[in-house]
């Protein structure tokens, strides 16, 4: 891969903790890598594995999922559902051959602006090292037809 590869990372975050934590990083004027695009959801419990697959298919090189710390979920236990779902989904990914290290799972509270900035930097570095994720892109190119939902 080339040195200048800039990964595209899509983050699925809950609005109550991580999204607010990301806002705090902004309010605190912390600087971090510009590679992540955030999709705001009410709760990590809302995050379907399909979103992650779709994002990878659309050309994302990495995925970040982040929500409230265990015990702190605004909806009492949506994050536990997300965690359990992730444990199962990760096994499935490994089985299907999609490298699960492209997907990062994390807890960031609304007070952890610093941690958010650090996480974005470390995730960006990690994905940059992994290089572009072109499994789907190649597949699409070969079949010459856009994949549908």
């Amino acid at each position, binding site marked *: 891969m080339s040195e200048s590869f800039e990964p595209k990372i899509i983050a699925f975050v809950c609005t109550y903790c991580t999204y607010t934590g990301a806002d705090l990083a902004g309010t605190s*004027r912390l600087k971090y890598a510009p590679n992540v695009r955030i999709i705001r959801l009410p709760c990590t419990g*809302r995050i379907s594995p399909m979103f992650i697959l779709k994002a990878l298919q659309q050309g994302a090189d990495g995925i970040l999922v982040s929500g409230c710390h265990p015990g702190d979920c605004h909806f009492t236990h949506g994050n536990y559902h997300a965690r359990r779902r992730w444990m199962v989904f990760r096994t499935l990914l490994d089985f299907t051959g999609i490298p699960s290290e492209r997907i990062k799972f994390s807890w960031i509270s609304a007070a952890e602006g610093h941690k958010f900035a650090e996480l974005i930097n470390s995730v960006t570095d990690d994905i940059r090292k992994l290089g572009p994720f072109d499994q789907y892109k190649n597949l699409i190119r070969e079949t010459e037809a856009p994949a549908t939902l």
Partner: protein
Amino acid sequence: MAKIGVFICHCGENIASKVDCNKLATSIGEHPGVAVALDYKYFCSDPGQERLKKAIKENNLTGVVVAACSPMMHEATFRKACAEAGLNPYLCEIANIREQCSWVHTDYDMATQKAMEITRSMVEKVKRNNKLQPIEVPVTRRALVIGGGIAGIQAALDIANAGQQVVLVEREPSLGGHMAQLSETFPTLDCSQCIMTPRMVEASQHPNIRLLTYAEIESVDGYIGNFQVRIRMKARYVDMSTCTGCGDCITKCPTKKISSEFDCGMGKRTAIYTPFAQSVPNIPVIDKASCTYFKNGKCKVCMKSCELNSINFDMQDEFIDLDFGAIVVATGFQVQDNSVYGEYGYGKYKDVINGLQFERLASASGPTSGKILRPSDGKEPENIVFIQCAGSRDCSKGVRYCSKICCMYTAKHSMLYAHKVHGGIAQIFYMDIRAAGKGYDEFTRRAIEEDKAAYFRGRVSKVWQENGKLMVRGVDTLLGKPVVIAADMVVLATAMVPQPDAKDFAKTIGIGYDEYGFFNEAHLKLRPVESSTAGVFLAGACQSPKDIPDSVAQASASASKVLALFSKDKLEREPVVASNNETTCAGCWGCVLACPYNAIEKKDILDRSGKVIKRVASVNPGLCQGCGTCVTFCRSNSLDLAGFTEKQIFAEVMAL
């Protein structure tokens, strides 16, 4: 055909310095479905909002994206502006290009590119937004206050005085909490009970307050405006309706040597007891674990002594179910168990006590009637060593936080001691003196200058007994010398910690807590009395260590939040709720298991003859809080979440 308007805010230089807003407007203007794209210096300003409204009307827009600050900041502002221009407010979305773009990136081109993608993603979302109507829910105008200490009493009185109904629940047999245990209070040295008991009586006699003592919260269901709470009334074995509180039973009870919780083990009580003389209500309870009758099946002396036949050994716990519109949590704190400091000899030497025990010694209602006497031999101590931060600010053994009140109460203890034992020497080991508060620093100066308290800046490493004295070895870091003091008594300024069951309680009621078990506020600075759950408010030391003035202030703040809530007949809620497609629902009930709010019910689908042909899931929009966990669980893609539909999110992803 979608006609989306995109409004790009410069936010002065906040966005414009890192994002090329003009270029952004030009390129997003070419995006399919975008009818108009404008940039302006401040869209949140009045002229900015006017521009937005004008553009909506002129272009007959079907959706709006405002690329500006975080939705937490101005989503409400712009949605209101849309509504004023005749557009359903839920057809407006915010693209966050300030907090999550311009403020955090330095590269102009990359930030512009990112802002473009964020905005484009939101345009694609808005194209799939639906018109929504806010959900109206009724408000039950009755407040539940949990905890009958000074914070709970204050909150209950404030709400009741405003004419609203309050139920005040206390798990101990009497109101009062920790404040009732204190001797005198800093920085004025007024007697705690003298200022506390009138409040307790006022709360118990208030026509708008229903007092439930010796009661605990069993379960909490529902949501803001509509909580359903089950309260367990623990069996007192004394009939509250007939008992007059004459106290004959207490005098006659043969089991007299039970360590008194109220006196922190410094005094004794009987098996049938009231915690202290001014208890409210002044109705005793039987401590089942210590009562001779409950242990051996024989005794009933209290029953025989009671002329009103108020004693009933067959009493059972009872449950009361009540509806509430708001909850104030004021469950208070505990003092840390000092046995973590083995080297200080707490629990090993009788004359090493904690601050709360010293309060009981100094209290006129305490086991020594306010005389400072050594627990070991009942003699007056000639000197006392006070050790501050015995637990607080100690990462290795105690807690990392400052307990906030110990500097002040240790200064107070040294003064009380000097006033009661003339010639007594108070020696205090401290880390820092934290006396921030009205009249607080003056108070500690008074302890040092007038009452001659000797302060040593340093920690104590060990306390041991030698020739009937407690030897205290510490260091005076200002002199740079080790110090050994032979003391008659040692008082540890113990850390304030959450109630032992605080975390379980938080789960019962559905609020968040921190690493220690103190309850979390919705925002540390801007929403300090609201919990993360709407309609549940916090007061007093259950949130963090607090002194009396802070607890009272927070209690009044909580009460005002409750009253604001009760000022409306109906509440408007965001219509972000799940709904189910009953045609495709297979009735697997995965959603029922996933829902944290029991908002999903099983509904029968009937044919014309009334026969059940199918059972499907049905979401109660009043109960649904909109987390969307059920949507992800749904195997047949029948459930969806308004505002965050599958279509919307996929569209967002695909636009990135």
